[in-house]
C-alpha cells in the first residue's frame, strides 16, 4: 500500500476525487488524434502563432442568505445574494520562458451581483452605491438549485468574455478558461477550458494508467466524448515534475475544446497547452492549489475578490435594504 498526502490545502477540496465506478461514456473515442495511446511530448514554443495568452476566471462570494415570504400564500423560499467577479489576464506568449516580456496585465474585470430566489421569486436589491443586486429567479427550491444557477451566471459570464476576447483580435490571442467550457461555441477558435480537479473519469483503467505516467509537459492524446449536448475533445496534461512520493494524478489538468474544431486545430491547441501551461504553474508554498492554480489566475482571483468589496459592509447594506423593502411593503412575485 502507498499513501500520498494530497498537495492541495484541505480547505480547497481535492485535486483528485474520482468515482472510478462511474463507467466510460458511450461515445468515448480515444483514437481521435490517431497517434496511438501513448504520451505526447510538450508542444514547441516556435509552433505558437499567438502573441498573447489570456487567462479567464471568475470568483463568487455569498454575501447574504435571505428568506422571502410572499404577501399572499405561504410558500416562503430561500435565496442567496451573491457577488460574482469575472476577468481576464493577458500574458505575453513568451511569459515564463525566461526572455524579457511585457508584464502580465488585467484586461477585463467585471463584477455582477445577483439575488437568486427559489420558487421563481423575483427580488432585486439595491443595497447601496455599487451594491445593486439583480433578480435571479430559480425554478426549484433546493439549495443546490440556487447554487447551480449562480454558478451558471459565473460560467456564462466567463464563456461570453472568452468568446469576446478570442474573437476580438482574431488569431492573436489564445484564451484559457479556468474550468470546463460552458459554451461549446464553434465560433471561438482558440479557447481552451482547463479543469483543475478531477471527480469523474472518462477513460478505462488501462487508459488511465497513461495519465499516471505522464512526465512534466507531456499529455495524453486527445479523446472525443460529450454526447450530442456537449461534444468535445479533451486531454490530460501534467504541469509539474512527476513525484514518486505523490499519487499519480498530482499536477494533472484536463483540457477541453469544442468538437466543432478540426482534428488538426485541436492538435495545435493541445500542443500549445502542453507548451504553455507548465510555465504558468504555481509552486506549493505559493498557492494552496499548486500547481493547477496557475500564477496569472491566482493573481486575477485576488484582484477580483478585491473588487467584490468588503463582505461585512455588503452584508450590513443588504440587511438595511431588506428592512427598507419589508417596511415599504415591496412585493415579491
Amino acid at each position, binding site marked *: 500500500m502507498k499513501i500520498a498526502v494530497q498537495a492541495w490545502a484541505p480547505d480547497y477540496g481535492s485535486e483528485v476525487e474520482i468515482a472510478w465506478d462511474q463507467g466510460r461514456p458511450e461515445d468515448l473515442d480515444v483514437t481521435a488524434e490517431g497517434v496511438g495511446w501513448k504520451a505526447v511530448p510538450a508542444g514547441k514554443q516556435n509552433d505558437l502563432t499567438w502573441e498573447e495568452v489570456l487567462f479567464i476566471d471568475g470568483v463568487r462570494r455569498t454575501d447574504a442568505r435571505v428568506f422571502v415570504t410572499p404577501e399572499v400564500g405561504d410558500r416562503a423560499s430561500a435565496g442567496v445574494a451573491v457577488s460574482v467577479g469575472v476577468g481576464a*489576464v493577458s*500574458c*505575453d506568449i*513568451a*511569459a*515564463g520562458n525566461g526572455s*524579457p*516580456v*511585457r*508584464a*502580465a*496585465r*488585467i484586461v477585463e474585470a467585471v463584477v455582477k451581483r445577483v439575488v437568486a430566489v427559489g420558487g421563481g421569486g423575483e427580488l432585486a436589491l439595491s443595497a447601496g452605491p455599487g451594491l445593486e443586486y439583480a433578480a435571479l429567479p430559480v425554478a426549484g427550491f433546493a439549495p443546490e438549485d440556487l447554487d447551480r444557477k449562480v454558478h451558471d451566471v459565473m460560467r456564462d459570464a466567463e464563456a461570453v468574455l472568452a468568446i469576446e476576447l478570442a474573437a476580438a483580435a482574431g488569431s492573436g490571442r489564445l484564451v484559457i478558461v479556468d474550468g470546463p467550457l460552458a459554451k461549446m461555441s464553434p465560433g471561438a477558435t482558440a479557447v481552451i477550458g482547463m479543469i483543475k480537479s478531477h471527480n469523474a473519469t472518462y477513460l478505462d483503467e488501462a487508459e488511465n494508467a497513461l495519465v499516471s505516467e505522464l512526465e512534466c509537459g507531456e499529455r495524453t492524446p486527445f479523446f472525443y466524448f460529450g454526447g450530442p449536448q456537449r461534444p468535445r475533445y479533451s486531454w490530460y496534461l501534467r504541469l509539474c515534475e512527476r513525484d514518486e512520493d505523490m499519487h499519480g494524478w498530482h499536477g494533472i489538468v484536463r483540457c477541453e475544446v469544442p468538437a466543432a474544431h478540426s482534428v488538426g486545430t485541436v492538435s495545435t491547441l493541445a500542443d500549445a497547452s502542453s507548451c504553455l501551461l507548465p*510555465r*504558468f504553474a504555481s509552486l506549493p508554498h*505559493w498557492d494552496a492549489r499548486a500547481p493547477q492554480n*496557475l*500564477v*496569472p489566475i*491566482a*493573481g*486575477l482571483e*485576488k*484582484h477580483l475578490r*478585491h473588487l467584490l468589496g468588503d463582505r461585512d459592509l455588503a452584508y450590513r447594506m443588504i440587511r438595511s435594504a431588506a428592512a427598507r423593502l419589508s417596511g415599504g411593503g415591496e412585493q415579491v412575485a
Partner: protein
Amino acid sequence: MPDETMGPVGLVLGSEATSTQEFHVVLHEDEYLQLDDLVVVRTLVPKIGEVTTYGIVVETAARYEGTSFESDTFRVAVAGTLPAEKSRTAVVQVVRVMPEMWIAPDSGQPVYRAVGEERERALYVDEMGDESGARALPVGLTRDDEPVWADVDFFDGTKGAHMSISGVSGVATKTSYALFFLRCLTSHPEILGKSAKNMRTLIFNVKGEDLMFLDKPNARFSDEHGAKWKTLGMEPKPFPSVSFWAPSRPKKGSEGIPQSSARLEGVEAFRWTPREFVDNGLLQFLFTDASDSRQQITWVAERVARQLSRWARDVAGEPGAVVLRDPAMLEDDGTPVVAREGDLVIRDLSDLVEAIGEHLEPESGAEPDPGWTGRVAGGTATAFMRRLYSSLSRIGQLISAGESRRIDRSREAVTVVDIHDLHDAAQRFVVGALIKEVHDEKEGKGRFPLSIIVLDELNKYAPREGWSPIRDTLIDIAQRGRSLGVLLIGAQQTASRIHPELLSNAALRVSGRLDSAEAERSEYGWMLPSTRARARLFKPGTMVLSQPAIPAPTVLTFPYPPWATRPEEVIEAGDPFEGV
C-alpha cells in the same frame, strides 16, 4: 488656490488613515514627488468650510500592489506571469493648516504641488514680518531651485539670535554656508531694515586660506551659478567691503609685516602693545588651556592683571611701552613717566613676563609679593610663571610696543582675521581678545549697530566640559547677545561637544553632512527622523535649516560663491606684468 492648471500629483491615500501630523499620497502614473517637495491639499470640513493642509514630503515608496511573496517580483517583472499594479506613494509631514483647524485631510482628495503663493504659505513666508515690512530673507534653494526663506527676526535679535552650524569637516560647507548667509544679510538691506545699518562682521580664518579672498571675483563662477543667485534676488558679487588682518611677523626687523602665506597685498598686520595688553586685561587669554582652570592659575592671573593695570605707566617717547611703578609710591596722574636707569621698560611679552616674575619669583630668593600672588601656595605661583614662560614662544609675536596695530573692525563691513598659521594657544588668545573686545564694546550700548561674529571650531572655544575665559564670554554672548546686539554664527563638527547653552540659544540651526553616530544624538532632535537618516548622505552644499518660524526643518542647497576661496580662483583686476 493651488495651481490647478498643473493638475494634482496624486490623491490622499485612503487605505491608511490620515492624521493631523502625516498622510500618504498615492501618485498618478505620470507624476512624481521627491523628498522635500511641498504639497497642498484642500478638505471640505462640515460646518467649517475649506481647510487647507500644507505638507512636506519626507519619504517616498514604490511597490507591486497585491504581491505577498518576495519572489512575486520576478513573476511580475521578469516572468510576466503575475498581474500586479505598480503603486508609488509619498509620505507627507504636515507643516501647516489654514485656517488653524487641526483636522486630518480627507482620503481621496487631490494633492497638488505647492507653487508660488501656496509654496510661500507652506514655508510661512507670509508670517515673516509685520506691518513695517517683510522679514523673509532668502537663505538657500530647494532641490528644484526655488528659494527658501528664514525669518530675520530670529537672527537679528528681534525675536531670537545666533546661528549654529554643524557638520563633518572636509566637506567645506560650514564656513561656506556661514559666508553665504552673511552675503544674504548684506545683500538685502531692504529686508534687514535698521539692522543693516553699520552692521559689522568679524570672521576668523581658522583653517587654510579660504576666507582671504572674499573681495575677489571667482574665476570658476559661471552664468549657471549666477542664475541661482538671481533667483535669490542677489547680484552675484564678492563682498564689497572687507579688511584682512594677519598677525605681525615675529622677527624684530619684520615688525608690521603681516604673517600671511595666502595673500600679501591688502592684508594688514595686527598685534597689541603692552599698554593695550594691560588695559584690555588680555593676560587671562594666555591661560585658556582646559588644565589651567584646575590649578587656581586663573585666580592668580586675575590678581596679576589687576596689579598690572594699577602699576603700568606709559613711558615717555616710547608709544605702547609701559613700566611698572608702585602706585603707593607714585600717584598715577596719567602722564607718561621717564624711564630711569635700570628700569625694566616693557616692550614685548618677554619683558612683561620678566616684570611679573620680579614680583612672583624674586631673584633675591625673597618671598613672592603677596599683593601680586594673593598668598597662594608657592607651587601655584611657580606654575603660573612656568605657563607664562611657555606662552612666550607661542604668543610673543602678538605683543610689541610701537604704534598701535589693533584690528580696526569699524573700517569695513567685514573684518577677516587670519589666525590659521598661529599656534593653538595664540589662536585662542586672538579669538578671546577680540570676542571680549566686541562684547565689552556693546555692553550697555543698545542693540544697534549689530555685530556679527563668525567662528569655526566652536568646540575648541566653548567646549562642553572644562572652563576657559573665552567660553564664559561666548556663553554670555549666547545668552544676552539678543539684547547686546552681538550675534554669533558658530560652526562645529559635532554639536554634542560644544556647551549646550550655545546650542539652545541659537535660533537658527543648520547642519550639513553628519557622522552616523553623531546624527543619532539628542542635539539633532530638531531634525525629522527622515532628515536625520539622510544627513549622513548629504552632498557638499546641502544643508538642513531649522528655524522657529517653520515647524519642519528645510533641506536646502546654496549657490557657488562668486568670491574666490583660493589663490588660483582669483581674477586679478589687471595684469601684474603689464608694461614689463
